[in-house]
């Protein structure tokens, strides 16, 4: 325990010295630091903070030191995160490289690939995006058509990807591509890393109903990719993808707790008023209580799952249940908020509505994607029926 206490003291001191005061304030979405070749930093301190954290490997605290990571144990990392939280430090670096590609490379990449890519992810030098979905294949992810044909030392890649998050800002893309058109659907897919500066790669942002454009279509026309960029073996891409998808599902499933941090009842009080300490509208109050109970129950399910994970008794497909329930819950939250807010929920921009109102409306629209992205609710129910309940095809 002394070692941990020592570690804690050391962390606290280091942060005191190295975390700029401007990085200890709430972070507007627009000031998030994503790194990359062409990164623009709204505040110079963002870059400084990222670099300092990266120098310790703390942008990826538990990654091995040999690839630039922090090499921390779980317990040490917990301390680090707590200390960061204590001073309200902003995230030093956000990155699909950290969240998704890194873990996949650590599990499936060869030594060269790890050496080449991981340190750059740690330091925020390369910004990655994900190329899974295709216009013709949504829920049917494995139905993808983007082709990669080996010609000599290179794969020739042709096709297009959709829902590539921030592809217009990314440097590299990790892609699922079809390398064997003859094999059965899942068996002919490979996992490929592509430099987006290569000729033939282009992107086009997609405007969403919520008014923002976090996603792109990404087009690949005769892109030449060195065969060394294949991860996890030829036609073994589906294995890599499944690991990543599960990971994504867990992230989105937790979404019920994301977004609005303010309690729904506090919003409701503003808009409905109170009578003797109760929300003035008893019917909406009942609806809201049901929502809060469901959210609390969902949290309880999460705790049980965490405990079962440790004993290995949790069924693998249970993450589909989280994904399903969590996203439906989040959609419901915003529908209730809209009901509470009346005509103040109907603004798009400009005068007459508070900023919080305007962003709630946008988040309501955004929430509709929860049950689509990362595997639709329908797909999750299919998985539960098949893999947990064993119902026949």
């Amino acid at each position, binding site marked *: 325990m002394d070692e941990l206490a020592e570690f804690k003291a050391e962390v606290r001191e280091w942060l005191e010295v190295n975390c700029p005061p401007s990085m200890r304030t709430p972070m507007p979405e627009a000031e998030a630091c994503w790194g990359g070749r062409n990164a623009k930093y709204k505040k110079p301190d963002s870059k400084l903070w990222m670099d300092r954290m990266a120098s310790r490997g703390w942008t990826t605290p538990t990654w091995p030191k040999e690839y630039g990571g922090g090499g921390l144990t779980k317990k040490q990392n917990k301390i680090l995160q707590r200390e960061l939280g204590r001073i309200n430090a902003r995230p030093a670096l956000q990155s699909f490289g950290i969240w998704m590609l890194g873990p996949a490379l650590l599990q499936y990449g060869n030594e060269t690939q790890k050496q080449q890519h991981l340190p750059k992810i740690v330091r925020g030098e390369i910004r990655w995006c994900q190329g899974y979905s295709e216009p013709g294949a949504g829920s049917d992810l494995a139905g993808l058509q983007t082709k990669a044909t080996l010609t000599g030392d290179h794969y020739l890649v042709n096709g297009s990807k959709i829902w590539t998050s921030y592809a217009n800002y990314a440097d590299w893309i990790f892609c699922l591509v079809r390398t064997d058109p003859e094999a059965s659907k899942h068996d002919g897919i490979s996992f490929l890393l592509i430099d987006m500066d290569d000729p033939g790669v282009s992107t086009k942002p997609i405007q969403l109903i919520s008014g923002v454009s976090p996603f792109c279509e990404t087009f690949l026309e005769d892109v030449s990719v060195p065969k060394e960029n294949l991860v996890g073996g030829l036609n073994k891409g589906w294995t890599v993808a499944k690991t990543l998808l599960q990971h994504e599902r867990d992230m989105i499933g937790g979404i019920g707790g994301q977004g609005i941090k303010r309690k729904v009842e506090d919003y409701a009080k503003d808009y409905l008023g109170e009578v003797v300490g109760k929300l003035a509208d008893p019917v909406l109050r009942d609806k809201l209580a049901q929502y809060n109970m469901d959210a609390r129950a969902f949290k309880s399910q999460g705790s049980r799952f965490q405990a079962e994970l440790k004993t290995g008794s949790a069924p693998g497909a249970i993450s589909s249940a989280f994904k399903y329930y969590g996203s439906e819950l989040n959609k419901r939250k915003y529908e209730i908020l*809209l009901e509470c807010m009346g005509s103040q*929920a109907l603004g798009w921009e400009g005068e007459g509505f508070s900023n919080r109102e305007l962003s709630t409306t946008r988040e309501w*629209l955004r929430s509709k*994607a929860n049950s*689509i992205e990362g595997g639709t609710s*329908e797909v999750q129910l299919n998985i539960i029926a098949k893999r947990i309940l064993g119902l026949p095809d």
Partner: protein
Amino acid sequence: MAMILNDEQNLLQQSAQDFSEKVATIENFRKLRDAKERYHDQALWKQVAELGWTGIIVPEGWGGSEFGYLGLGLVLQQLGRHLTPSPLFSTGFLAAEILMQAGSDAQKDQYLPKIVDGSSLFAFAHEEQIRHSIHQVTCRGEKVAAGYRLSGEKVFVVDGELADYFIISARTSGANGAEAGISLFVVDASQAGISKVQLTTVDSRNVANVTLDNVEVSSDCLLAEVDHAFPILQNVFDKAAILMAAEMLGAAEDVFERTIDYLKEREQFGVTIGSFQALKHRAADMFVELDIAKSVVREALSALDEGSDEVPQLASLAKTRLNDCLTLITNEGVQMHGGMGMTDEFDIGLYMKRSRVANQLFGDSNYHRDRFASLGGY
């Protein structure tokens, strides 16, 4: 009960459908939206007036066709299909209706022809809170020598930024919340003391918050008997709920049809997604909801033409039904369209946005369920 259309009504519906498909298209709406100005298409409005729709409920004596509410409902339903923004509801229905019920002969002579020929636009400034209420009127109408002095705030006034005239509810006596003491005024929008803030709403229509700062109006502006506007408001809002339901029905039909088409066309896992039984059952359920919604709107519109005693119940029924049905169908529609449903390029999101605004206008479902229960004596 006119559950089946007669020949004249069929003709009217057909012409509204043609207009909505050829002129009042959703592309047209997108242009207005992206221009981000007043969300009003003057050329389209001219055509609406020429087609005679501005006078559908107006007696022939003032140039109208006296065709009735079912007729107007059919037109609004078709315009609802393509999300057509037009001042028809505010001017051709709300203003015409109020003037017919509350106007003196002189007032009718002055305003109704302008409504029918489309030369003047009206907006009804009544709501003062974030939720629909008939009773809540705090805007003051103080008796002064020459007439009345109006002061207060009106919110979410549809077509408020377009209007040449406002019809304004104000409290001339009694406490806020009381039925007695509410009066109606028709006021020139350029009158001193009136200021407007145009809102940019999620459905890209013309809406404004309106402030009345000691607006002096002559006694000629008073509609109906002073202090006794409440029963008129009640009746107008019942009709408004039903006609708004008609507009929403058009939108729901359109989204439903789009979604069924998409289910038949989109392929996943090697088959069209419409062959998945879970989606089929949800589609069938939507069909049933929509079929019931159609019946309710049709019956409610007929009830208006027939002056049925059941109008209040049917108004609350129709509005609740269409609020919930359109919410269901837009939510399910977006979900069944998958990622594409989330893009601005697909129209379905536009319907989702409009649905929530229409939900709020003239009472949301909580409001109308409460009212339906009260009307039922429980």
